């Protein structure tokens, strides 16, 4: 009986691990591709360890195209992501406080509007938004990709509201008795307690913005302003022969921030998804 249990246990772990390996195989293959030449990538098959390790891919890839290197692309990505994430964080925290803690006229109405925007896919308003930004002569700048984030993101407002439910209302009362205004209550009490929810927001918004492809595709046309996501797509330009080695090298580099954050903040991410759900 006992041996049977052990065998079953080993079988279980072996199966889960083997299947998990298959799951991440494409990612591993991409990373190993960064160290192979085109010949090895195209004919090497499933092998993960390159026959001869090629390191030139990184240097060649980093050169980018049109005289603009990946230094610029990474810089652009970092600027876009940081601004959008900061905007989301500040505005969503404000709004969630109003909707969950303050009894003001029209609260129910604005709450329903918020739920509506959460269900409304961005693609539906993609074209008219583009036209509006075009009329404002802001297409080709970072503004359309950053400014909207400073006005609250429904998904994160909802997530923070869920979290605020768990902060006891007695704290509000106590603060009131101590002479703290509703503004002070937010900055001195609610905001510090919101920390776990804030970290989740930073991580998820960072991922979405870092990977965002459709936004830059619509609004950024000059290579000088391209983020990494759009730049690595240029490697697969149908008009030229694809340099797979460089493409995989830059692709792998583009995923490093994603993995690093996952490594350090895994706990918060899993909690955040577990409580509120993550699209994708």
């Amino acid at each position, binding site marked *: 009986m006992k041996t049977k249990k052990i065998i079953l246990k080993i079988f279980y772990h072996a199966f889960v691990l083997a299947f998990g390996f298959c*799951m991440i195989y494409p990612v591993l293959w991409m990373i190993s591709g960064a160290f192979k030449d085109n010949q090895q990538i195209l004919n090497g098959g499933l092998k993960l360890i390159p026959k001869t390790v090629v390191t030139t891919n990184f240097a060649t890839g980093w050169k980018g195209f049109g005289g603009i290197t990946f230094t610029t692309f990474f810089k652009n990505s970092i600027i876009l992501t940081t601004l959008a994430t900061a905007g989301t964080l500040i505005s969503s925290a404000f709004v969630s406080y109003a909707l969950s803690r303050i009894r003001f006229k029209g609260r129910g109405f604005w709450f329903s509007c918020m739920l509506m925007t959460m269900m409304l896919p*961005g693609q539906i308003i993609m074209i008219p938004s583009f036209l509006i930004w075009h009329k404002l002569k802001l297409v080709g700048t970072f503004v359309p990709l950053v400014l909207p984030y400073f006005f609250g993101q429904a998904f994160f407002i909802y997530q923070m509201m869920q979290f605020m439910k768990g902060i006891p209302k007695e704290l509000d009362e106590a603060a009131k008795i101590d002479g703290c205004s509703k503004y002070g209550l937010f900055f001195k009490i609610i905001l510090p307690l919101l920390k776990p929810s804030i970290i989740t927001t930073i991580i998820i918004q960072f991922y979405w913005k870092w990977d965002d492809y*459709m936004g830059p595709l619509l609004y950024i046309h000059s290579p000088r302003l391209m983020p990494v996501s759009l730049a690595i797509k240029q490697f697969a330009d149908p008009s030229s022969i694809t340099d797979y080695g460089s493409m995989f090298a830059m692709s792998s580099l583009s995923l490093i921030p994603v993995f690093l954050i*996952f490594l350090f903040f*895994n706990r918060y991410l899993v909690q955040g998804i577990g409580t509120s759900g993550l699209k994708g």
Partner: protein
Amino acid sequence: MTDQRKNGNRIRKIINNDNTVGYVFAMPFILGFLGFSLIPMITSFVYSFTDMTFGAKEINFIGLENFKELLHDSIFLKSLRVTFKYVIISVPLKLSFALLVAFLLTRKSKMVTLYRSLYYIPSLVGGSVAVALVWKQIFARKGLFNVVWKQIFGAEAAVNWFGDERLAMYPLILMSVWQFGSSMIIFAAGLKEIPESYYEAAMIDGANGFQRFLRITLPCLSPIILYNLIMQTISAFMVFTQAQIITEGKPNNATMMYALYVYNNAIKYSKMGYACAMSWVMLVIMSIVTFFIFKSSRKWVFSEADS
């Protein structure tokens, strides 16, 4: 002196009034909602009745012409069919996988956290351009899949994924199913909430593992299944990046996803009015689908109050 103090008090009262505080804090959302959701939606609605093209000097009101044209646009009709096929195949598969793996990973073992992270990685990176490019290479004519096929079977591979109209969709579906990680984590969080005593009671009654899954796990998880189903359906309807990068809608529009066709009409052909009409049709279709999912959920979602 006292007057000034009175005024000061009055101002302070207004500032600290719940209505003022509420609107001050909710202001970003209200402005954003008007500026970035409502106005674009209204604009889009108005444009959908015009022949607006990008950069055109004049815009003519053409009534329902755009919508009539849609009915005769064979690519539009095909993109509808293709998108529905994508949603209907990929969403149930993805959710089944997510549930199955979440269930497998409920064992009390230190390794489980590690396993969950492992299975979550595809979701983590799947939306990126990087992975889309890898997918494109794997299923290309001379890609990894065919090379391996040749190594194993010796014969020249006959599978031309992106060249065959009947097959081109499947790598995209596989990619979507592959990213079951985030649904899995939501399911895992739900599984943790199911009281152990339910299972113990069922075991005393002699229910086997499969029966327990069917009679306890599924009903208890049904609200979470509903949530995942709706979120995944909406995002599957809107799939864009993968189709745009991997297949560009080819071959013969067999992977011309709806969002991609909207984008092409607006940006490539600069038919803005037409694209706006398409966006609205999509919104209506998605609302109907979501409505039916909600409606049907009354039959299969169990809430605590019922039992």
